[in-house]
């Protein structure tokens, strides 16, 4: 890919992500927020493609857009009665929160400007999906199994919490 094309792709994608994220935190209609969240997730999948993480890009679309964004939409529809659009969506501390978030970003950028990262010019892994699969069943096999237990617990917990209470 030529350099200009690469830059164009990155800046377009980055602008889309930042725009979608800003909409997520500022819009009044929570339903639109969730749709912009899905757009942002798509943008991040694009970033993963640019970083040669094709498997993660696919996972991002499937899990974040396909599962989490849809889950959020369902939760919004189930709680429709109290999510009025005319209601104020931010609390009293929103100016302070904005200032602190801005300060935090400036702090991070300052930190980054002074840092020297040990970048390497080794060629990236050719078949990243196969390599990732191998890592997951060799070196990271224990965290992999623990992750399955975490998911099971979360599933049972979510069912228990959201279950309709039966009258005794």
């Amino acid at each position: 890919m030529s350099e200009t094309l690469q830059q164009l792709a990155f800046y377009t994608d980055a602008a889309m992500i930042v725009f979608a994220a800003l909409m997520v935190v500022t819009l009044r209609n929570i339903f639109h927020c969730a749709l912009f969240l899905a757009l942002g997730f798509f943008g991040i999948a694009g970033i993963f493609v640019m970083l040669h993480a094709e498997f993660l890009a696919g996972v991002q679309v499937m899990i974040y857009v396909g599962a989490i964004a849809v889950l959020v939409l369902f939760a919004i529809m189930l709680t429709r009665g109290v999510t009025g659009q005319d209601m104020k969506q931010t609390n009293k501390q929103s100016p302070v929160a904005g200032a602190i978030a801005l300060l935090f970003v400036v702090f991070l950028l300052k930190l980054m400007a002074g840092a020297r990262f040990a970048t390497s010019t080794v060629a990236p892994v050719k078949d990243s999906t196969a390599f990732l699969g191998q890592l997951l069943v060799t070196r990271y096999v224990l965290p992999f199994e623990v992750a399955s237990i975490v998911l099971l617990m979360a599933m049972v917990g979510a069912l228990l919490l959201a279950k309709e209470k039966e009258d005794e």
Partner: protein
Amino acid sequence: MEAIGLNHYLVLSAILFGIGLYGVAARRNAIGVLMSIELMLNAVNINMVAFSRFCAPDQLHGQVFTIFVITVAAAEAAVGLALVISMYRNLNKINFDEVNLLKW
């Protein structure tokens, strides 16, 4: 050297994290707060994949970590939204500043 380097991704990730931080602190709606948390987790994911790509391209440890972060994010979203629905059903409220049962 490529046109888009490590710092580009780090700056994007920092901005995204900042937006998520603002959302967590300022939004009243519980689902809005959960969405902001997802934004912050995604910012972290970008960071890890970028470091994996530019600092150790022949290994994929950063990508493995990202997979685990996505797993935990999915679990967190499921439990968080179940809590929100339970809160809505029992208290008929969904804004965090109105729910103060544990406050005294």
